[in-house]
């Protein structure tokens, strides 16, 4: 983990962003290669080629900025910006639990997944009071359920497993 942190400097992160967009563009180009009608690519094709053109310029810009920082500011600032570029445990758990919440909601429905997810997230973010951890998720779930299901007539997910049971 420590090694990974050393590798993932702000510079590397910025390269990852630009490269991810480039990879998406390549995939998009591959995906539309099967389109026979040229009219479907009127705007898309130039956009894709401009992205290809801009990519090396961005990499060069980032590299130049990195060099500039190295020569002018040195250690302290670099350490600071590295610290700010790190993904904190809190945020990481927040992201993972949110993803899990969405996957679980598909199977066990809105009510149960929310009552499980919300206290967990509150705990991750630093809530310690048991009262709040129990009461607030239940209250939020009930309010949202009533608001969407009853007031707005939008049925919230029941979950594949529990469909028809509840």
């Amino acid at each position: 983990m420590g090694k990974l942190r050393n590798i993932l400097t702000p510079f590397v992160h910025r390269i990852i962003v630009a490269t991810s967009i480039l990879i998406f563009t390549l995939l998009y180009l591959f995906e539309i290669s099967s389109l026979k009608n040229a009219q479907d690519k009127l705007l898309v094709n130039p956009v894709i080629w401009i992205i290809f053109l801009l990519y090396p310029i961005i990499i060069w810009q980032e590299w130049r900025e990195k060099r500039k920082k190295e020569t002018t500011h040195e250690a302290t600032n670099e350490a600071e910006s590295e610290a700010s570029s790190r993904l904190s445990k809190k945020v990481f758990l927040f992201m993972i639990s949110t993803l899990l919440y969405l996957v679980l909601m598909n199977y066990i429905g809105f009510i149960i997944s929310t009552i499980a997810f919300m206290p967990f997230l509150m705990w991750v973010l630093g809530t310690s009071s048991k009262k709040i951890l129990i009461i607030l998720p239940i209250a939020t779930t009930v309010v949202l359920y009533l608001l969407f299901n009853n007031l707005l007539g939008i049925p919230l997910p029941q979950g594949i497993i529990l469909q028809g049971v509840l």
Partner: protein
Amino acid sequence: MIDWQSLFDGIILFMNWFNILLIILGLFLGVVLGAIPGLTGSLGIALMLPVTFTMDPLPAFVFLIAIYTGGLFGGAITAVLINTPGSPAAVATTLDGYPMTQKGQSGKALGLAVGSSTIGGLIGALVLLLIIQPLATFALKFGPTEMFIVALFGLTIISSVQEGGFIKSIFAGLFGVLLGTIGMTDTGAMRGTFGNVYLLDGIPMIPALIGLFAVSELFFLADKQFVAKNTSEQSYMSEILNGIKRVFKYPFNIIRSSAIGVFVGALPAAGSTIASLLSYNEAKRFSKKKEMFGKGNEEGIVAAETSNNASEGGALATMLVLGIPGSASTAMLLGAIIMQGWVPGPRLFIDQSTILYGVIFSMFVGLLFLILVGGVVSLGAGHVINIPTRILVPIIVIFALIGAFATRNLLFDAILVFIFGIIGWYLRRNKYPIIAVVLGLILGPIADKELLKSVQLHGSETLMAFFTRPVSLVLIIITVLGVLLPIIMERVNKKKTAS
């Protein structure tokens, strides 16, 4: 200038208690969210978009525009109380608002802010009412070639985004355009869907906006204990009222700042932040007490707050008539228009004039209520800032996910919110402006559609058509200037600071 029949029909359509209630609720939400630094009125619009899905168009827009109005004022509360602009548009308000708080005059400062926001907003709404019909009639003369250039002009906003630099903004914008062109094309082909049937209609706007703006912000907030540090609880009704009264002592300031606000608001490239900063500068230039600016001058607050609320009228004119969103809030309002099954563009105001006149009238009513709602929220502002993120973030994230789910009853949309949240968070961390992605996402498909129509209409002479049609040519010149000016200005500024 005004289609009186449609206006009266619109007023009659608007006049019921439910709409008034929606205005108060929307204002309250907008002011509260606008007051919390990090959260903005546009977040409120994003969160409430799914709720308006089942509403009729008029109450839906009345509600969302009330949030917009409230959000534009709300930023002033924390700007005055704790020197932290609740939203970027309130940056100029901090300059004199906070020094007034330090002098023990925060009540008066808040009163000045709410009073000038109301008057600025009213002037903006009046201009909107007067210019929208002729603007729409003129814009109707636009063919697909002109509309394509208008979409391109909208995309040039990207070049004026300061964050991250010019090339990165363009790169992010083009990424947005590509995302926007995903879905079934006008010729019936599947483009960029990667076999996903949920993407046939394109990437749904609401989940993308909620993810990019709201959820990405929540990921940032998770690392903080509170949305804003330190609080100041004040309760001084009479001081606030006194502040509201004092606004009328500066009539020229109000007129000048409103004019700047409406004009700059109407330019897609600028928006309320630039409007208020410009007005502040001008107020300082014209003031007899220049040296008092930045030390708690009432004129500074009046200029900044009048202007940012006046920009609403200008921004709405551009958004409603040309379909170009100049800011995150108007982008989301445009999303609401699309969600109602309407097509943004010049025809919108001709086809839906009664409802839109009703909406404009609701702005007048809403602004009058702003004094009441803004005053009440100002009184209790300290309490909202006290809510720790460990409570606030989980509630908002669940609301955001469920809200997105509700637009199409698809869990896929909630997953999109999460994905766009991650994308937005990572882009922002690495200094890529997400407003550029959003502009591409909204304007990309319009540009694509209009270009296709132009080619179908003009065939091999399409390129010539762009330059031979007079309106199109003028728009091309404006667009080129729109791209080049920010670059030249940046160079000039750099040279100035270097010397």
